[in-house]
């Protein structure tokens, strides 16, 4: 496919991610704007880092949830971090689930926390897949023409 077409595909996919609420367009755009010649794959690098780093947080949360009694403070703290990380890459749905989780946490509702966490993980995994596809497309399309995006 020609370059333009590739780029269009990338743009389309991105737009759908925004529309479906997977990604927060403002934040994601911010990341894309940071991409430059020095860091042509900046967004992908950040997302990769996010998934790598948050994996341990997810693990910590899981472990904390298995404990009895549940240490809600700790849980809240982990989730706060996780939420902050997720919001920095614009992971909208993940962030929303995290907020819900924290509500249950503050209420001391272990059941609610566990259920919500399943949701968190689900969204987390789903987003990852989408982004992987997205980045693949983006790589294939080649560097984006910076001019199209006003700084």
């Amino acid at each position, binding site marked *: 496919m020609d370059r333009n077409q590739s780029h269009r595909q990338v743009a389309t996919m991105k737009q759908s991610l925004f529309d479906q609420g997977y990604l927060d367009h*403002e*934040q994601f755009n*911010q*990341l894309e*704007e*940071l991409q*430059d010649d020095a*860091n042509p794959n*900046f967004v992908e*690098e*950040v997302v990769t*880092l*996010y998934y790598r*780093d*948050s994996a341990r947080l997810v693990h910590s949360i899981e472990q904390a949830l298995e404990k009895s009694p549940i240490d809600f403070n700790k849980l809240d*703290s982990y989730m*706060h*971090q996780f*939420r*902050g*990380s997720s*919001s*920095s*890459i*614009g992971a909208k749905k993940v962030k929303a689930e995290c907020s819900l989780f924290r509500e249950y946490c503050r209420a001391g509702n272990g059941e609610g926390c566990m259920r919500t966490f399943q949701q968190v993980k689900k969204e987390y995994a789903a987003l990852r897949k989408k982004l992987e596809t997205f980045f693949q497309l983006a790589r294939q399309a080649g560097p984006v023409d910076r001019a199209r995006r006003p700084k």
Partner: protein
Amino acid sequence: MNPSNGKGSVSTSSRVSWKSNEAPVADKFPVGLRVMVVDDDPTCLMILEKMLRTCKYEVKRCSRAEEALSILRGNSNGYDIVISDVHMPDMDGFKLLEHVGLEMDLPVIMMSADDSKSVVMKGVTHGACDYLIKPVRIEALKNIWQHVVRKRKNEWKEVDQQSGSADDGQQPKYSEDGDYSSSVNEGNWRNSKRRKDEDEDGEDRDDTSTLKKPRVVWSVELHQQFVGAVNQLGIDKAVPKKILELMNVPGLTRENVASHLQKYRLYLRRLSGVSPHQNNLGNSFMNPQDPGYGPLSTLNGIDLQTLAATGQLPAQSLATLQAAGLGRAVVAAKSRIPIPVVDQRNLFSFENPKLSFGDTQQPPQHLNNGGKQINMLHGIPTNMQPKQLVNLQHQGNSLPTVQNVQSVQSGSLLMQMTDQPPLRGQQPMGNYNSISQSSPMMNLSSSYPLPNIQAKSGFPEDLTSEMKGSTPGFMPSYDIFNELNHQQKSHDWELQNVGLTFNATQQANNSIDVLGTSIVASHHSGFSSSSQGSGLTRNASTVHANNNNNAISVGQHRMNINNFYPDNNPVRVKLEPPLFPEQFGQDDLMSALLRQQQGQGGIEPLENDFDFDGYSIDNIPV
């Protein structure tokens, strides 16, 4: 230390130099702004770093607060602003904020995903100059330079006020200068208080009245009062309620006092363990303190000042110590020097865990009698701006102080002061440890009863005669000093010196101790030149070992001084020579002396905790 980091080292040179040196860089501001960003989240850190670099700032990232602190401490002038996350595993962001504010006086921006009012308020009360909600947008980062400029601007103002010299007036703000670092540093100490002031809407010395927020701004005056009250009660018996009563400051609550007391205690503890900090004098600590401490300095002041000069003592601490010790005697000039309100935090910021001072110094006798070794100096490495040192010098050109200064550096001196007679004899040129060495000196000094100072009446004559004998020009100096005394410059120093000198003369020690004003310590270089101007001889009081003043004019003093300071340059605080004209050196002393005679209040011997004996005493070699 050298405030300027390479960028434009203007700071050290003098205020005047600000303009001249950094003109070209000014245009590029805020390009090159040196930012330290701290966040335990690697994703956020990566994004922030990239954003900051896009803004053309220089970025240093840390994922741990401790790491950031050690970097900042190691390179105090290396950064202009710090951005930190609130929630971090190894250290609370607010704690880091406090440390940075107190020790390095850099603007700190907090950030968090948490936008709840309470957390934001906490940021404000802890002195953060801004609070960003995550995820942070690049637009928010683009404007962070304003905090740096604002701070510098305030620093300049302070400097202007303090030095009262024309120089300061030239640089209303630093922004023009590319030398960010220097400006930050220079104003660091001075500004540390200001920073708090900024946050608190106004730098005011009397914070209680303008308290708008829950956090009390401990201005120098207020702190002095606090210290005075504490000393009166005895450090061990000082309870917030009583202190509050003694202070009798409207609007101040017991809680305010309690928290301040806690910090103060930590500070003292830290001071006692001061580690060698050579020549940190640069710091303005001394200066700010002086204002009210003039006479105080004689006793404790000297050490304090020295310490302050070295920058080791937070200005407030110095003031405090002095205040405590002297009970604000003599200080005619007490409030002359506009000391920026020293944020309480600043004072005690030295709590920094990393301080090694604690262990280093345990001055045998004086220094840590109270057992409160506080590494004050440690905390304030480069904060003292050279300018401030200069102030110190002016005040205390007395050489004897040099010795003191040294001790000051160790910070322990300061502490000593609080608890007990400061190391007078300490010579720690910047080495806290040295305090112990100087112990012998201290003893000597100790032997110099502060009362000597008081014996002003007797002194002048002695001095005069001595002076006269040795230095023909002596008499006139009094006049000069008097005039100088009136100057806003380190008034306190003058007083201090005076006190000291008195002792010296009386003791016939010529021991420069009289000059004890620690100020000397820092400035030997500076004063030397200045001394010459004024008929240095007189300065006998200020015995700057290095300065011509030492001439202690009396010749004899001079000798002593030299004796005392083997290297002739005892801890001289490096004051920027250009900053303070020679007049200070000697004149201050003279005026101080004269004033004393006039019954200013005399430099009372520091009977109280701070027994510093004035700098002079320390210098007197056994």
